């Protein structure tokens, strides 16, 4: 049986998620393309009757992680020091986000560590349950919760223009 047609139904969602994950449109479309190619080459490992969307997001996650690993091996980028960002370091007072726009969200999202960005988007954009996210990322549900909690709180601080307790540093 050919899953090609079923795959196509999921392409718009994969693309929407990829474009939120990577604001660079070309890279996002490459991510979708690589995901579809890998899915097709492994279609025999898909069990009919199971959740195709979850299977595709798992593949996309793996492709994405590989890309991030390769990119961080050669690129210069700015990262936020995870350890320095304790709960106490957050200065946003709250109730300020209603006036912000979606482009601010895009900007802030790109400042999250990739693992937090994935969780925030899978829950917020894809509206996956925590269990589905845990499954797609192959991590325990507790890890999903802590990444979500840290990611959202950091987004909130970034978008409120607060000075987070984290240090920006250039990583080579």
């Amino acid at each position: 049986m050919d899953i090609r047609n079923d795959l196509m139904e999921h392409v718009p969602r994969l693309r929407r998620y990829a474009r939120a994950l990577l604001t660079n449109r070309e890279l996002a479309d490459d991510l979708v393309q690589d995901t579809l190619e890998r899915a097709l080459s492994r279609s025999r490992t898909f069990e009919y009757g199971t959740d195709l969307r979850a299977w595709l997001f798992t593949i996309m996650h793996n492709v994405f992680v590989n890309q991030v690993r390769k990119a961080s091996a050669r690129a210069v980028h700015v990262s936020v020091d995870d350890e320095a960002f304790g709960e106490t370091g957050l200065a946003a007072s709250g109730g300020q986000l209603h006036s912000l726009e979606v482009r601010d969200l895009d900007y802030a999202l790109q400042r999250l560590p990739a693992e937090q960005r994935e969780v925030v988007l899978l829950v917020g954009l894809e509206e996956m349950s925590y269990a589905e996210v845990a499954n797609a990322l192959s991590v325990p549900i507790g890890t999903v919760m802590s990444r979500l909690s840290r990611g959202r709180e950091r987004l909130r601080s970034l978008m409120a223009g607060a000075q987070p307790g984290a240090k920006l540093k250039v990583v080579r």
Partner: protein
Amino acid sequence: MSEQPAAISEEDIHAYVDGALSSERREQVERAIELNPALAARVSDYFSLNNMFP
């Protein structure tokens, strides 16, 4: 004031925003929010964040 609200974790707050709590737990979170304006503002921001996604 003897009615101490049930302890609410970070996870509960996010699960509340995502509609992933049991009704009993949800009510406990709602009570905690009513008693804590800072928490209420934070929860409001989390809802705003979720609503910004298309």
